[in-house]
């Protein structure tokens, strides 16, 4: 469980029409999520190396795909840390419940002091900047202890958020109007199935939430003992992750139903959809708790913070492993410190008054035109240059339930074809109509340019000779 479940899933589902989003989401989970997770776990376990080295072992010229994945992960973690900084700040605001009764206006006006657009940066928010520095310090402390400490931290920080989420669902469901919210969340809208943007959003959400296309799973699977049941591990991880997202949807949409009931507005209009949704809806649910609201708020945001740290240090671990593998740098601490300082500096843009706009743009482009293309490339490489049959035999030799030929079909045909179509259709859509009506120059700088830079840098790193 990570921010992908509690923060990103609800806002992506709300932006894409609630029930209209669920069918593509489930299809994406089974056609791309699970098959690609088996693929990434398999690559990591068989090659026992980080993402770039694993691809280089298939063919040297594919090493850049590993760097591409790590590059996309790097840009994602740059704003991920800012979401964690928001949680840090909300943790303190919980003590006084500063937002009670005016959640959206508190988040947008008092907390972010949001400007009129991405071009108007305004000033840096000191509390968000301090939260960002603290977040990177925490990530550094967790990761510098090695993967064993990662396991311990995750063991502590995963079960409690699930419990808190269940409490929020119960509170949400008992609010007036909750049924309308759930109807919006669960009623399928088949007309939306023709919209390529909904499909790409669903695939990207599956990639983000399962950490596919980041290179993380390859690095982590390289630590798994030989003989681990890859197939079952992939199924458990994917189904539990999607199950928690699905649960978070109940908490958020029941509160949205309450907002619609209280303001007598249509549910699609009650709050501004976007990355800030979680910081409007969860606080509203907390403010409606019958007892110990402040304490519940503190515990909830503390948990949101630890969830973010789980996800963030896994991304950092993947990149650090890649750099160490390539350049044979023995001093891991130096790599972590250098990487954390650079990303903390990059994150300053998101602490400005236009930060949320830039976060939204980078999040949209890195997920839709970063993770999804990396997933496409992985399918092509394993499907056509490593032979899926050989790969499947290797996986089946260590797994309790063997994967059938359906996996070959998914990796060679279904997943890459679907991804290629939705990516291409979305590129056309983005060019015709800029995302969320942001100025074209801002989507060019924060979107297309960043995507291009990541690819160019990956190609250069892939061609560089590593230290033997």
């Amino acid at each position: 469980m990570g921010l992908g479940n509690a923060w990103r899933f609800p806002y992506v589902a709300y932006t894409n029409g609630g029930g209209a989003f669920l069918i593509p989401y489930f299809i994406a989970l089974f056609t791309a999520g699970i098959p690609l997770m088996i693929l990434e776990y398999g690559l990591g376990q068989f090659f026992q190396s980080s993402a770039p080295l694993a691809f280089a072992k298939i063919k040297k010229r594919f090493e850049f795909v590993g760097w591409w994945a790590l590059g996309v992960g790097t840009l994602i973690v740059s704003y991920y840390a800012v979401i964690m900084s928001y949680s840090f700040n909300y943790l303190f605001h919980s003590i006084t419940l500063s937002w009670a009764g005016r959640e959206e206006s508190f988040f947008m006006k008092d907390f972010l002091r949001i400007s009129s657009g991405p071009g108007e940066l305004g000033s840096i928010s000191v509390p968000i900047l301090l939260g960002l520095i603290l977040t990177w310090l925490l990530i550094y402390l967790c990761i510098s202890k090695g993967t064993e400490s990662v396991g311990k931290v995750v063991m502590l920080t995963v079960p409690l958020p699930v419990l808190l989420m269940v409490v929020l669902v119960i509170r949400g469901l008992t609010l007036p109007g909750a049924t309308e919210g759930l109807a919006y969340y669960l009623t399928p809208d088949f007309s939306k199935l023709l919209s390529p943007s909904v499909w790409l959003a669903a695939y990207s959400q599956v990639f983000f939430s399962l950490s596919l296309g980041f290179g993380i799973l390859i690095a982590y699977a390289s630590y798994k003992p030989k003989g681990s049941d890859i197939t079952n591990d992939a199924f458990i991880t994917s189904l539990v992750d999607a199950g928690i997202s699905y649960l978070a949807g109940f908490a958020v949409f029941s509160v949205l139903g309450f907002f619609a009931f209280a303001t007598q507005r249509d549910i699609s209009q009650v709050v501004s959809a976007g990355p800030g949704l979680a910081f409007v809806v969860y606080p509203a649910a907390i403010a409606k708790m019958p007892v110990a609201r402040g304490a519940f708020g503190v515990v909830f945001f503390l948990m949101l913070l630890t969830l973010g740290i789980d996800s963030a240090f896994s991304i950092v671990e993947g990149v650090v492993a890649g750099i160490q593998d390539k350049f044979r740098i023995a001093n891991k601490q130096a790599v972590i410190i250098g990487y954390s300082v650079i990303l903390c500096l990059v994150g300053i843009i998101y602490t400005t008054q236009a930060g949320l706009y830039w976060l939204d743009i980078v999040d949209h482009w890195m997920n839709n035109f970063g993770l999804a293309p990396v997933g496409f490339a992985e399918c092509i490489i394993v499907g056509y240059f490593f032979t899926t049959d050989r790969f499947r035999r290797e996986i089946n030799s260590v797994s309790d339930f063997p994967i059938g030929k359906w996996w070959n079909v998914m990796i060679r045909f279904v997943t890459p074809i679907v991804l290629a179509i939705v990516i291409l259709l979305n590129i056309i859509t983005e060019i015709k109509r800029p995302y969320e009506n942001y100025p074209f120059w801002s989507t060019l700088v924060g979107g297309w340019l960043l995507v291009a830079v990541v690819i160019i840098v990956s190609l250069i790193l892939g061609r560089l000779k590593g230290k033997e």
Partner: protein
Amino acid sequence: MPVSAWIMFAFGCIVLYGGAIWCITIAVKRGSKEKKRNEVAHNQGAD
């Protein structure tokens, strides 16, 4: 809620939670089998 929403609700619960429980059961069985095998190997080694 409309019937289609109830169907989606049931589908999500059965597939996601039912599927997860089924897979976890397999993993637990595998774990206990491996534990038994290790114990047998350990006992044989001690003999």
